[in-house]
């Protein structure tokens, strides 16, 4: 086939639905994606495994306690295979993980996976709301800062985001609690829900706000929201700071482009030039930033959840760390890693939807 195809050619209007070649290419893309996900997961387990070996926690001691006899110690050491060669240990670890066996937590005495299923939704609830706040505010503010570069809105937004990523989250949390809970009483205090509302709704998603809406328990919903709003806003503020800063710099890059001038030259109003044309061109990097922000929200949860006594993954991991509960710590690390992998995968799937140039890239 010639490149230009000068001969009379059929002229189908481009159909949204693909040809056989299109399907084949999509399948190839998915296969490639899954391959890279598997490889990344393998790397992740390697890292968590070796973290488990290098941190100064003696897993045997954590089980038997420091008053156990030498014989007991040795027996447990053999049981958990701590004396085997490292590759063998890793292999056994990997097999267990693949079978969904993360070991048993010492402090809760539950399987770690079961604990995860319990605490993870709490963190998700917090992180999702925080990300919504961060994105819905951060992107428009970043655009606004870029279009007003050097003038007061830009200065104000940049100052606001500078504060956002220079203040430690636990300090913000404490000040927030002091002000909005203790002084003003606008929000509810630490925890996910008041004790009196405990166990009213049966968990379906594990996120109380959603479960209570499903169950039609609106009192529970409002109470849970009152607890959620402050920690979510604080985490949201931090992610907003980052998202706004990145959006601003992406937008500045686009506003210099020729097509922006051309769009203005044909008489398009500023709103369309900025919010349709320029913003339309930054979704790929922006989605990367938003996905990474979501990942860092899960990490940031460790401190926030501690301050707010939020029974999520962060608080769980903090407690496990302080109690040398190795299985729980590694399980939590692995879960966060898996979420990162999933987010990256999701971004890869979204890119071609928002940028036609990414559709043909192979």
């Amino acid at each position, binding site marked *: 086939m010639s490149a230009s195809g000068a001969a009379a050619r059929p002229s189908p209007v481009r159909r949204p639905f693909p040809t056989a070649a299109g399907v084949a290419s999509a399948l190839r893309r998915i296969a490639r994606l899954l391959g890279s996900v598997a490889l990344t997961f393998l790397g992740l387990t390697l890292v968590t495994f070796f973290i488990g070996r290098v941190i100064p926690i003696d897993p045997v001691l954590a089980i038997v306690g420091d008053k156990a006899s030498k014989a007991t110690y040795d027996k447990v050491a053999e049981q958990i295979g701590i004396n085997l060669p490292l590759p063998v240990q890793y292999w056994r670890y990997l097999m267990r993980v693949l079978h969904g066996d993360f070991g048993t937590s010492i402090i809760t005495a539950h399987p770690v996976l079961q604990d995860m299923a319990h605490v993870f939704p709490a963190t998700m609830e917090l992180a999702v709301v925080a990300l919504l706040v961060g994105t819905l505010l951060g992107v428009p503010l970043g655009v606004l800062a870029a279009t007003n570069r050097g003038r007061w809105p830009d200065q104000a937004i940049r100052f606001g985001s500078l504060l956002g990523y220079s203040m430690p989250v636990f300090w913000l949390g404490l000040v927030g609690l002091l002000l909005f809970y203790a002084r003003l009483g606008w929000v509810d205090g630490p925890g996910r829900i008041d004790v009196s509302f405990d166990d009213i709704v049966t968990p379906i998603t594990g996120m109380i706000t959603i479960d209570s809406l499903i169950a039609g328990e609106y009192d529970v919903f409002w109470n849970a929201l009152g607890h959620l709003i402050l920690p979510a806003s604080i985490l949201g503020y931090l992610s907003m700071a980052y998202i706004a800063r990145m959006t601003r710099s992406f937008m500045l890059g686009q506003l210099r*482009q020729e*097509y922006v001038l*051309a769009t203005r*030259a044909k*008489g398009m109003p500023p709103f369309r030039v900025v919010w349709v044309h320029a913003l*339309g061109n930054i979704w790929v990097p922006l989605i990367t930033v938003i996905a990474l922000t979501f990942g860092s929200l899960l990490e940031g949860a460790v401190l926030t959840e501690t301050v707010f006594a939020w029974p999520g993954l962060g608080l769980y991991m903090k407690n496990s760390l302080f109690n040398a509960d190795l299985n729980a710590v590694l399980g939590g690390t692995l879960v966060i890693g898996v979420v990162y992998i999933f987010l990256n995968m999701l971004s890869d799937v979204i890119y071609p939807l928002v940028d036609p140039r990414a559709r043909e890239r192979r």
Partner: protein
Amino acid sequence: MTAPPLLEVRNLRVVYPGDDGDFRAVRNVSFSLGRERLGIVGESGSGKSTTGRAIMGLIPRPGRVEADAMRLGDADLTRLNERGFRRLRGKRIAMVMQDPKFSLDPVMTVGKQVAETHRYHFRSSWKAARTAALEMLEAVHIRDPERVYAQYPHQISGGMGQRVMIAMMLIAGPEILIADEPTSALDVSVQQQVLAIMDEMVRSRGMGLILISHNLRLVSSFCDRVLVMYAGQIVESCRANRLHAATHPYTRGLLTALPELGNRRAELPQLRRDPEWLADLPAQVGTAP
């Protein structure tokens, strides 16, 4: 010319304030444009593009545009704010830029980019705008408008992109088209095609064209009149077919430095710049010629 000019510019000045004094990018440029093809030639930084953009109100802050008079038909361009300019852009005066690879929005189909100009200026529905855009694409000799309409800029060639650009800029029926190096980024083989299409469009619609280029040959063969700019001023103004008789030493220098087929020269003469050329020329008094 007996008809009143489409565009009249008298003593246009564009100034960019800087730390060590103002930079005067355009100094007292005066000309008028009728239903003709006017070429502006000059080297990089001579102010030719800036002149074009000043007419469209597209000089970015902190640049300042001043003029004794700048009139587009009945509209006084010196008194327009951004909003006022926006109504003229695309509708009465439009601009084709250098490289369609950069001057078309990469994430919007080219058809939609043509259609949105129509939509905005005529408050038309997407459906009507689409029909108009397809007609316009056909008018710039795109053989398969339906197919091209749905393509993205990276999927079409440079020549095709420039036709789309022309369609996008002319769909709302402007009186004046400013073409800023419209063929410099194209292959030599398609340059002529694009110029021919532009010429056809401008003639059939009775428009005025300002062709900005650094290419003396192109301008002298394509245009009716030529302005030569140097350091922000017009140093020479003549009919295109009289360019060989130009008098300003800068223009003469450029002309003698042109290589010619069939005239073997070991070395092309270098342009010797005279610092005197930088001196301010007298500003235009009264009406433009």
